[in-house]
């Protein structure tokens, strides 16, 4: 019935009709341009935020479970997590030995201090960790080396510097082999870590000094218990098993009666990842929903202008019908015109959306990620808007009576 040539002719006629009233066409298109542009830019922002969160979560390390000491209640006053001091070095060692699926364990204590090196000084956090810590966090040494098990056993006066701390204390020379003073204790710098950047909570992860946990407990924190224990499961599938194993072990070691609460708590990185991803996904969906409203408004604009166009061109419709156009031919003509309008707007909208996302990244330093998928979907959606909102006017045109249409002034 119909061949390609005919579609081409109709398409040509559609673009001619659109060119006839340039200002009107551009204004109508603007609705779609803004709509599609907004959707693309907003989804780009959402995806950018999501990608950033994901990369930060990955930076936490893989398959990591953090075991915290529980809260303690003294006369109705609760300390925060880690305050109870229920986790011991022996707990950590037992985990490594007895819980199946555990690939690495690092006991952790924290304190803060003013650190001095020559004429420079810097206040930072001191993390007492096990040898396995860098493996668990997937953190690499940039220069020098990590301390050893022997250093841990001997509570040796050695440390590894985070990138920020290293830069502050040794702005010019190489810190490896130098000595720094923490609370007046001279500590030998064994290595410098690679930069890891900000954590997902915004703190600078490189602003730190890592010392053996034995050294940290004895010399700096002055404690005999641990703040937390970092545990790594061998595979993601073993996470739950390892978590259950740890709980069982600790309840047994801490002699907690069945039915009583744990005196420790666990967090794993998947939970954090899920929460954060869910947050950014909600944000993306919200942004896209708001942007879609403008696409809807654009669609209504198209319907409005197509209705005007059908009325204006009643006589043309009459002529076409008189020379043998079927209702379907007229329907198709106006539908193609509406789709040409909306998809041209869609194309321009994609350009402005991609440009807008780039601009936002430039001005506000927000990461944006415009995926090819969102471009394809946005374009298909704009064409669909044309079909949806163009259908009613086109149908109205196709149902005109040729005699009335020809007589229309």
């Amino acid at each position, binding site marked *: 019935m119909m061949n390609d*040539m005919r579609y081409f002719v109709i398409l040509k006629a559609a673009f*001619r009709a659109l060119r006839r009233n340039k200002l009107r066409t551009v204004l109508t298109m603007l609705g779609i341009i803004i709509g599609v542009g907004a959707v693309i830019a907003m989804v780009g922002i959402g995806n950018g935020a999501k990608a950033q969160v994901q990369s930060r979560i990955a930076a936490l390390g893989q398959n990591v479970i953090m075991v915290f000491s529980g809260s303690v209640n003294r006369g109705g006053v609760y300390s925060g997590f880690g305050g109870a001091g229920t986790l011991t070095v022996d707990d950590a060692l037992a985990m490594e030995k007895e819980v199946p699926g555990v690939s690495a364990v690092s006991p952790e204590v924290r304190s803060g201090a003013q650190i001095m090196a020559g004429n420079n000084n810097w206040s930072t956090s001191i993390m007492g960790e096990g040898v396995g810590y860098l493996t668990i966090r997937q953190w690499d040494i940039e220069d020098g080396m990590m301390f050893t098990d022997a250093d841990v056993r001997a509570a040796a006066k050695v440390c590894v510097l985070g990138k920020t701390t290293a830069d502050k204390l040794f702005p010019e020379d190489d810190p490896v082999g130098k000595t720094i003073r923490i609370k007046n204790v001279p500590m030998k710098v064994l290595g410098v870590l690679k930069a890891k950047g900000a954590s997902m909570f915004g703190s600078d992860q490189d602003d730190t000094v890592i010392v053996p946990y034995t050294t940290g407990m004895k010399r700096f924190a002055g404690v005999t218990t641990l703040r937390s224990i970092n545990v790594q499961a061998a595979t993601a599938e073993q996470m739950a098993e390892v978590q259950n194993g740890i709980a069982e072990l600790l309840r047994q070691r801490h002699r907690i009666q069945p039915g009583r609460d744990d005196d420790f708590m666990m967090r794993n990185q998947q939970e954090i990842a899920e929460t954060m991803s869910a947050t950014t996904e909600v944000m993306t969906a919200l942004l896209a929903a708001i942007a879609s409203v403008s696409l809807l408004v654009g669609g209504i604009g198209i319907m409005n202008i197509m209705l005007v166009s059908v009325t204006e061109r009643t006589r043309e419709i009459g002529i*076409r019908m*008189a*020379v*043998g*156009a*079927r209702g379907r031919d007229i329907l198709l003509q106006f539908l193609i015109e509406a789709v040409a309008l909306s998809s041209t707007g869609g194309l321009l909208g994609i350009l402005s959306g991609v440009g807008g996302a780039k601009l936002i990244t430039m001005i506000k330093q927000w990461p944006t990620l415009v995926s090819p998928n969102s471009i394809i979907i946005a374009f298909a959606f704009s064409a669909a808007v044309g079909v949806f909102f163009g259908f009613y006017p086109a149908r109205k045109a196709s149902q005109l009576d040729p*005699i009335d249409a020809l007589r229309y002034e």
Partner: protein
Amino acid sequence: MNAVIRLHEIHKTYHTGEVDVHAVRGVTLDIAQGEFVALMGASGSGKSTMMNIIGCLDRPTQGKYSLDGIDVSQLDRDELADIRNQKIGFVFQGFNLLARTSALENVELPMLYTRRRLSGKSQRERALKALDTVGLADRADHKPNQLSGGQQQRVAIARALSNEPSLLLADEPTGNLDTRTSIDIMGVFQKLNDLGMTIVMVTHELDIAQYTKRMVVMRDGKVVGDTPVSNRFNAANELCRLQEEQKAALLNDE
């Protein structure tokens, strides 16, 4: 005789509000191949309704209408559109060309809606041939607003011819034209009729009807007169006479 149009007891009633309007009350009429008929009558005589029915733009409420041997009185909207496309060429009083569209593309328009389509090239050839028939082959690229009224009506006639219809249906084709151009256009119709085209023309001007071969007069929805044209005008002669009259008038002025 080979009838192109065969109307039998055609009735058309409009239901507007509470009153039924009987626009056509029993018209029976045969028009043969090669005829040139003027359909005449005052306004309200039912000639426009008759014209719409003959042109397959409207269906009779009662009666039978065969066009070129096909019973069209019971066809649906789409089938009527196809019949209009294949069998009928329309020429209107107001030319009804598509604005901002070249003469050639206007002439090609009916071919756009033909079910069995021609190639783009043969479409073009046909359209150019039709334009040549009305003497406008050299204006194919002109837009309607670049053409005079007479030229526009010629383009409209070419459009009506482009699908090689069995019937040319003209509705007051000279209504918007001056005397000279009117004679000119009637000349085109006479030429087409000489080539064998069947033409039905609605008009209320007697001197225009004089160019046809047969006059059908309607009143109150019925045919009240059906006579051959006795002293038929010839467009070429009339043009000469008009020119001489104008010359004489000029001489008289001097």
